[in-house]
């Protein structure tokens, strides 16, 4: 199961499928973008980041894509596992205060075994 294009507040996928979580950001001056994972009862945890001069960055099982033309960010998770179930937030950061992040609406990912 995949979801492309629109931001959805929830996404449910089968274990082993790929997941795509989308995010629209608002500030064209944002310099740096981060995806965070938040498990129930915990603080946000860094997953992967990307600078505004890049359009793609890969990590372990995760890929972030940045489309500055339409101010859109996506997170792809390969071979989704039950441990990936969480709320995922994108965050944009201006170059004036590198730690001041504006978080987007979260997407709750549920992975079905």
């Amino acid at each position: 199961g995949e979801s492309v294009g629109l931001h959805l507040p929830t996404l449910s996928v089968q274990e082993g499928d790929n997941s795509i979580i989308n995010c629209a950001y608002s500030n064209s001056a944002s310099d740096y973008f981060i995806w965070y994972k938040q498990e129930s009862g915990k603080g946000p945890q860094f997953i992967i980041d990307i600078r505004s001069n890049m359009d793609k960055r890969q990590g372990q099982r995760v890929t972030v894509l940045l489309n500055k033309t339409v101010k859109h960010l996506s997170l792809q998770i390969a071979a989704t596992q039950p441990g990936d179930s969480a709320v995922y937030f994108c965050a944009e950061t201006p170059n004036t205060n590198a730690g001041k992040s504006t978080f987007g609406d979260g997407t709750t990912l549920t992975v079905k075994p």
Partner: protein
Amino acid sequence: EPEVTQTPSHQVTQMGQEVILRCVPISNHLYFYWYRQILGQKVEFLVSFYNNEISEKSEIFDDQFSVERPDGSNFTLKIRSTKLEDSAMYFCASRFDRMNTGELFFGEGSRLTVL
């Protein structure tokens, strides 16, 4: 692995009371932040702190809020006279900044319930 620690994990208080939330950032980090998250909503920036002073604050961070780094390890958020709408999860975060990245290391949060 070094982590940001926060206390208390949960505090219940009466409206109008003062609350202090405490954080111990990662020891070699230089920049400190408070964020809050109202139940079911997005994480919101409150304040950033560097070199013993506030570097930026949001509209939420009004006069009833204050932050302090009283010693070399603690970073506190004080809410002077709590309101019902202050009920939220408060997250402390820190970063090192040598690479000017925005990656923040968050604590597990302090849940504040105002009755």
